[in-house]
């Protein structure tokens, strides 16, 4: 798991979605968090290159990136 979104911190603003060069971040529309937002998710962890661009654009520090050992 490279990119994780803290479920209850995310406000679903979508800035990470536009920032992702791999187009693998989406706003899920299945489950609301405790603040009442649909949140961002990474739909393909294997495709994630840990470029951190989504996290850079996140206004809520909701995104953590683990670049791995490489």
């Amino acid at each position, binding site marked *: 798991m490279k990119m994780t979104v803290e479920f209850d911190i995310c406000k*679903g*603003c*979508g*800035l990470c*979605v536009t920032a992702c060069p791999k187009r693998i971040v989406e706003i899920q529309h299945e489950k609301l968090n405790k603040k009442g937002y649909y949140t961002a998710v990474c739909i393909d962890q294997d495709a994630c290159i840990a470029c951190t661009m989504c996290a*850079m*654009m996140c*206004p809520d*520090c909701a995104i*953590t990136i683990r670049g791995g050992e490489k």
Partner: protein
Amino acid sequence: MPDFNKPHALTDIPLHYCPGCTHGIVHRLVAEVIDEMGIEGDTIGICPVGCSVMAYDYFNCDMIEAAHGRAPAVATGVKRANPDKFVFTYQGDGDLAAIGTAETVHAATRGENITVIFINNTTYGMTGGQMAPTTLPGQVTQTTPYGRSTDVEGFPVKVCEILSQVSGVALAERVTVTDPANVRKAKAAIRKGFEFQKNKQGFSLIEVLSTCPTNWGKSPVESLEWLKENMIPYYPLGVYKEGAIR
């Protein structure tokens, strides 16, 4: 490949800002610079009145809440008594460029060794979207319902342009956070400001063009587009003044 974690200089308290508000990005950039310079224990931050009024809860360094517009005067008081500490203010456009114009300009003329983070989103966000000193000509706000008329409300205040003429200024730079590349540049500018402060080389101000999706009535992503199309032409990005004054 790099990791990305929340900087230590930010507390664990969730930010209260509206979804997509770029305050959060700028908070993080300031905190990252504080972390990277290892100065959290020696930094005192001053919050304004406006949306970021509660920033004292978000930064892990010592924090002071100032009266509307007075942050540069409060910062001066802290800095003069504690010249070896780092002092920054974090202010919006109403706070800095309307009610606090005198405090801003005079802290700059004195060359106070402080760093001012100036959020320009062309609106008074906290009170619900009234005209700010930086509201663009024609822009509709709660108090300019027919659009800002320069005949009636005058022209937007261009803070970096004004400060570029002030001798005490070591750094006046305008940046934005519309995309990762600009976020990187914004962080570099903030770092530069703190470095000037570290070396006691004068007043530094970093103006960050920001969004207010809620009061602009746009989605966070549309807001960034609006910023690029409307604000950047009026408020060109770049360095307006750079160089140690002492």
